Each structure stands twice: as C-alpha cells, then as structure tokens.
C-alpha cells in the first residue's frame, strides 16, 4: 500500500504515524521517549515500523515536525518540514473540521491555536515559563508517589479541590506541600493542582485569545482526566480529546506529506536503512566573529549532511565550510 510517514521529534517524545492514502492511521502510532537523543529515538522508531511492514508497503511521502524537525528532515529525507503549530492545527482539523480552538499541552511546551472556518487565525506558545506543562505534572506525581497514569483518576475523587498558586511551579510546589501538611486529602490536592495548571495555562498562553467551542484538547497531558475536567470547568464548555491525542503532531505531518505528494513527483525518503546508518553529530564554536555561533554538524560517514546554527549563513545548510573561520 502507498503510505505516508509523519515524524514529530519533541523534547520529551518522538512520535511516528503512518497513514494510508485515505489519511487513516496504518499500524499503531508510535510514542517513544526522546530522552535527549533525537537521532537514536528516530532510528528506533523507524526500525520498529520497518519490522511491521509488508512487502507491498511503500512510503510515498514523509513529513517532519517538532523542535528537531530540521534534524529529522535531513536524516530521513523529508518532503515537508513543518513547524509544530501548523502540524497540530492540520491534525485537529482532520479530526474535528469545525474546531475553533485547539489546546495542546505537551512535555515542555503548551500552545493554543485559534481556528476559524478551518484556518489558523491566531496562536500562542508558552514563552518564558514552563509552568503548566507535562513535565511539572510528571514531577509532582513522582513526588506524591502516584503513577502518572493514575493521577487523573485520583483527581476525579476530589470533593473540594484546594486552591494552589499556579503562577510559578516552584511556588506551586511549596503551596502543595503546605496544603498536604495541613491535612488536605490527596485527591483534593491533585485536583487543586490541575485547576492551578489550567489557570496558569489560560492566563499565560490563552491570554487575550478568543477561546470558543468546539475545543480540541491534545498533547500528552490530554490523557489526564483531571486536566480535562479542570479545563471543562474553567471554560464552561465540552472538550474533545482525539483518539490519537498524543501523536497529533506526527499525524499532522503525515497529512501534510500526503498533500505534498500530490504536488510533487517521487519522495525524498532515504529508505528504512536510515534506522541503521551511523550518524555523527558534533558542535563547534565558529571563530570568524565575536558572535561565536554554535554550529552543529551532522555527518554520515565522511559526508556532511547538514550544518546549522550560524547567524551569517557562512556555514550554509549544506554548504562548504569556510576553512578560514575554523582556523581562526
């Protein structure tokens, strides 16, 4: 079958989704931990998919997104490299074409995307603070000794959620400890935490945005019932969580790859052998000027696949190195 591959490499997870020509997921979508090693995670994911494919399966287009989209694009030879905001919007609209708001809360960032008549009209991402993202929930679940997947169910048992300061995670934590010591129950604290995180999200990321239903909630945190309930309570609206809520970026990238395949001949996909190719990465400081840019270089054996990180373009995306700058 003709297949389209979407890859989303984020700070926390690396996701791969394979779509059939109708845009429906083929095989189970993959959700892997990036663990600071995007190349490894990507190769692992590709290997898993390769082993499940049949003889007649052929990849006809690849899309990459996420904070390591440039890297992923170079390694696999992607046909489309798209920012995660647009990719998430594409995926949400596929699931719910009449969606007017997309709330996406991931490991280290959170976004809001405002849609009207099927196009993005406004968006925002968390800027200087990671409060209200999945990492913090993870950390608190660990501290309270609750497995993160039970966190949501626990908050459902709350009677009177406690009030926790949500402006800063560091203070939220001290506030939580205080409430614990006062004798509040665990479900009330957990539910209070979810409400604090929702307040933080709406005040920071959702500030000044026209949040209107239908609302789609996606990203890893959408798994958390407590967060879902807190959002519904705060926004006074029903919230839809798509089936593949945690791989929507990759899903969107695959949909974009499918659209792109209609416009171009062939694919840039470098084949499944990418999963076993040895890649070397290194970074160095360019000495050509006081900017001291950190240049990153990706090599496959002797061949330089890509370089980036320089402000002036001296090192080029795939260009030749300026030797003088190195010797300086």
């Amino acid at each position, binding site marked *: 079958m003709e297949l389209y591959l979407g890859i989303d490499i984020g700070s926390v997870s690396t996701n791969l989704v394979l779509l059939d020509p109708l845009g429906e997921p083929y095989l189970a979508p993959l959700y892997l931990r990036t663990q600071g090693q995007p190349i490894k995670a990507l190769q692992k994911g590709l290997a898993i998919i390769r082993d499940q494919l049949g003889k007649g399966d052929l990849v006809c287009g690849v899309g990459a997104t996420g*904070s390591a989209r440039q890297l992923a694009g170079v390694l696999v030879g992607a046909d489309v490299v*798209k920012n995660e905001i647009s990719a998430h919007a594409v995926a949400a609209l596929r699931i719910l074409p009449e969606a007017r708001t997309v709330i996406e809360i991931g490991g280290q960032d959170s976004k809001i995307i405002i849609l009207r008549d099927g196009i993005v009209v406004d968006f925002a*991402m968390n800027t200087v603070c990671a409060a209200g993202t999945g990492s913090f929930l993870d950390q608190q679940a660990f501290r309270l000794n609750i497995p993160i997947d039970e966190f949501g169910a626990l908050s459902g048992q709350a009677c009177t959620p406690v009030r926790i300061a949500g402006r800063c995670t560091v203070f939220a934590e001290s506030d939580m400890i205080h409430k614990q010591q006062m004798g509040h129950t665990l479900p009330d604290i957990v539910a209070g935490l979810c409400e604090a995180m929702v307040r933080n999200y709406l005040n920071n990321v959702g500030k000044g945005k026209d949040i209107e239903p239908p609302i789609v909630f996606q990203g890893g945190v959408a798994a958390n019932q407590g967060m879902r309930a807190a959002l519904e309570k705060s926004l006074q609206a029903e919230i839809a969580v798509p089936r593949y809520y945690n791989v929507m970026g990759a899903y969107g990238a695959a949909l974009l790859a499918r659209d792109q395949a209609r416009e171009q001949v062939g694919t840039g996909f470098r084949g499944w052998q990418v999963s076993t190719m040895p890649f070397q990465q290194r970074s160095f400081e360019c000495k050509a000027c*006081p900017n001291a840019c950190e240049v990153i270089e990706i090599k496959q054996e002797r061949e330089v696949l890509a370089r980036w990180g320089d402000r002036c373009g001296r090192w080029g995306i795939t260009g030749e190195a300026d030797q003088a700058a190195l010797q300086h």
Partner: protein
Amino acid sequence: MKITYPHMGNLYIAVRALLVKLGLDPVLPPPTSRKTALLGVRHAPEFACFPLKLNLGNFLEAREMGADTVLMAGGIGPCRFGYYAEVEREILADLGVPMEMVVLEPPSGDWVTFKARARSLVGDCSWWQVLKAIRFAWYKARAVDALESKLLYLRPRLCEPLQLEAIYREALRRVDAAENRRGLDLAVGDFLKDIRGLPRKSGDLLRVGLVGEIFTVLEPYANYDIERHLGLLGVEVTRSIFLSEWINEHLFGGLLRVGGLDHLEETASPYLNAFVGGHGRETVGATVHFAGQGYDGVVQVAPFTCMPEIVAHSVLPAVTRDHGIPTLSFYLDEQSGVAGIVTRLEAFVDLLEARRKKRLKEGV
C-alpha cells in the same frame, strides 16, 4: 578623551561620523555578541530589561579597548530607558570602572541645559562646525537606512539572498568609511548598481510590519535577526521606525524638520490616546497604519518586562478585531534558543498565507 557609545543596530555608523567630525576620538566596542550579553547579565540587575544589559556589556568591552567616556542617550516618560544612563553610571562606579558618562537628553524645551551639556562634549568646536557634523551624521544615517530598506525589500525576492547580504555588508563598510558626502553617494550608488542584476524569484509575497520597542527592533542581536528569518521565509519586512528617525528624535531633539513619527500618534487613536512611554503608542499607531497599507501581518518585539510595549500589546487585539490584521508579539531576553522564535515565525507565516489564500478564493 576616548569616547564610546552603545550599539543599536547600525547606529554606530552615524554616531562615529558625528564624533569624528567633532574632533573626538571614538572607541567602538565590538558588535554586540554573546560575550557582550554575558558581561552585561553578570553585572546588571536581574530585573532590568535586556537593552540595559547589552549597553553595559558594550561599555565594559569598550573599556578593555581603552575607552574612558561613555556617550549615552537619555529619555523621558515612563519607560525605564530614561534612567538607564544613571543606573549604568552607578554600576560602573561600583565595579570600580572609572568611566565618565555624558548623557544626551531630548531637550524638551530646555535649550539652555541642552546647550551646556552639548558644549561640554564638543569642546572648542564652533557651532557652525557642530551643525556641519550633525548634518554629515544625518546623511550617514540616511545612507544606512537606504541600504537597510533595500535589503529588507529585496531579500525575499531574490534567488540568492546570501549574495545580497554579502553586497550589503560591503556597502555598509563603505558607508562607514566614507569621509564626505561624495564617498557616501558613491557607496550607495554602487550598492544599487550591484544589486540591480541579481536574479529574482517570481510570485506574490507576504508583507509584514515590524513594530515595537526601538532597541529590539533595530538591534539584530536582541531580536534574533527576526528580519532575516522572515526575509528568508519569503516575507518582505517593513520597520515602523528607522534609525534616522530615532536619531533625529532622541539625539538632535527633533531639530531636523523631517518625517517623524507624529502621524503614528494619530493612527493610534482611539485605541491608545495617552503617551505610555517608549514607543508604546507608536506601536499601536504603526499597526493601524500597516493594516491600512494592506500589509498581511504585524510582528511586535519588545524586551521582556517592557512596560510601554505590554500596554501596547494588550491594546493590539482590538486593532486586530477592527482592522483584521494578525499580530504576533515577542518578548526578548537573554535566552539563546532561537528555535522557539523560528517556530512561531514559521507558524505565523503559514497563518498569513492561509488567510491570503482564503481571501483570494472569496474574491475579497
């Protein structure tokens, strides 16, 4: 007296011309870089905004090169910048760095004080010489503006934008080196000649207005080269404020009766009727102005915690609602990860493209 001054984009070219013509010996710090930021962040208060930190870094780097006097601009109104010269003077003193601070305040009517302060700077120069120096610096600023606006216009239109950038850098160097108007005219003329034949791309492109706090608009280190990112994404960027306008307003006290930003105060009404400090009102006015000119979107940049721009930011949704122009705001600080900014810019460009397509389809 070895005098230095902070960087703000290509401001150094005009100020150097002014000081040299006044018979002074300017020491130019190296271009603002990560090293500058590190120095500034180490010695500045944490809650001060990014421009102060970069200024301070510039001074310390210039000190290493032998500078003993700092020329700094002042300011009026609720923006903290007006007080930065004083704060910087104190910090330098605390650090045991003996540097004199000369502050140029906008005169705001008090010509006697302004004259006295200027006199301390220009020494024995006659007022006629001073006027000539100001005029020459002004021409340089205008030449820089001409190069920059051409760069912004052409970057998204050319097949090889990096080639254009190389030609631009060379032209900038020649403008900086020019000793008279003839040299200036030649540098600009040659630049225009060199770029004429460069191969162009076809197709419609998006136009975005860049508004916000002046330092972050003009200093590419502070704004992560936002103009360049947008340009390479195929977007024509127009600034709300150019260097020459700022120089006229802040250093010459609006002495030269040229253009200026007054019209932006009018377009800011009824959204923002008060002077909120800095260029807050102009940011709103410029956004309305760009909407009226048929621009596709507006990008606002400001230092993190910048009060005037926060006020403007909170007014912008009303402008978007009434004029249908999307805006994107960035608060900039010392973080060095450019990825988040690029992601937002790319998404913004996608948004603008989708809007344009939809409009074309609907035949609006």
